[in-house]
């Protein structure tokens, strides 16, 4: 290392030795911006959480969202988790998310690597083949015919395979793969390494962060998806969690609130304060996001030194 790094100044932060001391103004500016940004997110989030824990009375008195906690009323959560379907649904979504993310990541990494060297055979047409999916969408009825034709109705594969590849994720991953210095490939190839070996030994270790991010994108996509379940899953015990949660959110939207001359028996009789339930659903949706993110973030550690692998 260069000589000056050896002279470690007295400091207690994680700031590398070579980086100059932050200016007061810079610190203040950063602090202000981040505080504003975080507050802009946290204040509404706070309202969401408080509302989810409020009684119907409090919500009515506030005319909707509640800012100040008056009580701790977990009814909304009790209603959601005693709905009967939710436990099945969490299991279903967990299976779909894990299996789907694994498959998607596997297939996407392979393809992104396969496309990472311009000039190889069929490179451009294949790239366009992927890019075009970004622009042309399949219709609902033809998709339904394909999926049911393959016998995947009421089958969890119907929630995985149709959305397994995202062209966006693929090209982003590819861009990262391509930014790996070419010398690394050359030296590996000279050592007689095959493509798969280069991918697993050189490319992936150097692309941990982006692979984790793409994995996150896929996982979030699978976890949040519900529309294919509407089309392909009729069995109540195979519904994914988002679909079940959606039903709680929309429970208040009876046709009569839209001017249909019909009273749906049962809708008015249940006690759940509808807004509290909606907000509880939002909270429940966010929890997995909070849980999963630290795992992704771990890979954002700075200082992946290319030379470390090379040497």
């Amino acid at each position: 290392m260069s000589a000056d790094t050896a002279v470690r100044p007295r400091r207690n932060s994680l700031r590398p030795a070579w980086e100059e001391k932050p200016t007061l103004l810079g610190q203040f500016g950063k602090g202000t911006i981040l505080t504003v940004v975080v507050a802009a997110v946290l204040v509404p989030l706070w309202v969401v959480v408080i509302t989810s824990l409020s009684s119907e009375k409090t919500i009515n008195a506030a005319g909707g969202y509640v800012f100040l906690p008056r009580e701790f009323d977990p009814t909304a959560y009790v209603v959601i988790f005693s709905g009967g379907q939710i436990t099945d649904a969490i299991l279903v979504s967990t299976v779909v998310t894990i299996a789907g993310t694994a498959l998607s990541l596997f297939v996407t990494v392979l393809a992104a690597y396969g496309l990472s060297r311009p000039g190889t055979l069929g490179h451009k047409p294949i790239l366009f083949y992927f890019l075009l999916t970004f622009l042309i969408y399949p219709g609902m009825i033809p998709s339904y015919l394909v999926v049911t034709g393959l016998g995947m109705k009421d089958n969890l594969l119907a929630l995985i395979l149709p959305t397994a590849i995202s062209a966006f994720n693929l090209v982003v991953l590819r861009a990262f793969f391509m930014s790996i210095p070419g010398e690394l490939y050359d030296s590996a190839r000279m050592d007689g390494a095959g493509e798969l070996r280069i991918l697993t030994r050189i490319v992936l270790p150097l692309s941990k962060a982006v692979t984790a991010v793409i994995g996150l994108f896929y996982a979030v996509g699978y976890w949040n998806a519900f529309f294919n379940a509407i089309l392909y899953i009729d069995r109540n015990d195979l519904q994914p969690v988002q679909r079940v949660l959606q039903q709680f959110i929309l429970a208040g939207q009876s046709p009569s609130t839209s001017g249909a001359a019909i009273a749906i028996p049962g809708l008015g009789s249940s006690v759940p304060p509808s807004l509290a339930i909606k907000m509880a659903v939002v909270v429940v949706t966010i929890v997995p996001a909070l849980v999963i993110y630290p795992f992704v973030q771990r890979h954002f550690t700075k200082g992946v030194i290319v030379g470390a692998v090379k040497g």
Partner: protein
Amino acid sequence: MVSAPPIAAEPRAAAKKAKKKVKAVPRRQLSFGQRLRRDWPLLLMCLPAMLLLLVFHYVPALGNVIAFQDYNPFVGDDPLEAFLYSEWIGFGNFEYLFKNPAFWDSVVTTLSITAFQLVFYFPIPILLAILLNSIMSPRIRSLVQSVVYLPHFFSWVLVVSLFQMMLGGAGLLAQTVRQAGYTPPEIMTNPDTFMFLVTSQALWKDAGWGMIVFLAALAAIDTSLYEAAAADGAGRWRRMWHITLPGLRSVIVLLLILRLGDALNVGFEQFVLQREMVGREAAEVLDTYVYYQGIAVQQWGVGAAAGLFKAVIGILLIVGANKLAHRFGEQGIYSKS
């Protein structure tokens, strides 16, 4: 740690080195057979993804033929025959769209929103990522990261209603202003500022989420470059200019090109929800127009035609943007070759 590779004395050169891409494999010299023998592992690797897309994307996408049909799902003996035997009407569905000035109005609105967001939305996640990356404390960094990406999980209905709660006519801001004895400003219902409104909603919802990919790109930048640059006396702004930004450049260019290809998509739900509050002129984007004129009135062929129109424009924009990227010496999505 193993010692870093020798670094050029000048930071600019160091940055250039970091950016150096995979070398394009020469191809002119080799015959097809030779190239196949050399590249088959790569082709094989693309195959699973291609097959999945073939079955679940391209085969069903053939249904877009209804853009040229007066599609009737009930002609013929089975649903497939319906796609063959529905009346073929040439470009009738396209004409239906193109002849209506309101369609072009919606295209213009959409493009202006895209342009506006390219300036006021697109750079924010990048700046946020750079800012966050410069924070030394890992605790603050991870706290901010996990907080700001949460709104991505909120539905548009919720985002709009939260904005309404804060900024609406009966919202927190308005009531505070009223209590102070003033007339509250109309933020949510003002067509003139609608573009600011939707962009700030989009920022609130997705800036943190969009930041993640840039954080990954920042993590991929070799730290020794900074160290060497600092050793050469480059200050923090110069380092950002000569190392950080070049390190992000390929991702930025890629996302920019993809966003351009998506220029006619600015979202649907966000606009449908707020259409009444500001009126059609401000909020009618292409997708809502097509919805009301095509899909909502069962003219699915019109919907498919609009989809194809968007695809063609998207392709043109991607190709154009890519050419432009090459002009500036960037790789873009695909290389010049």
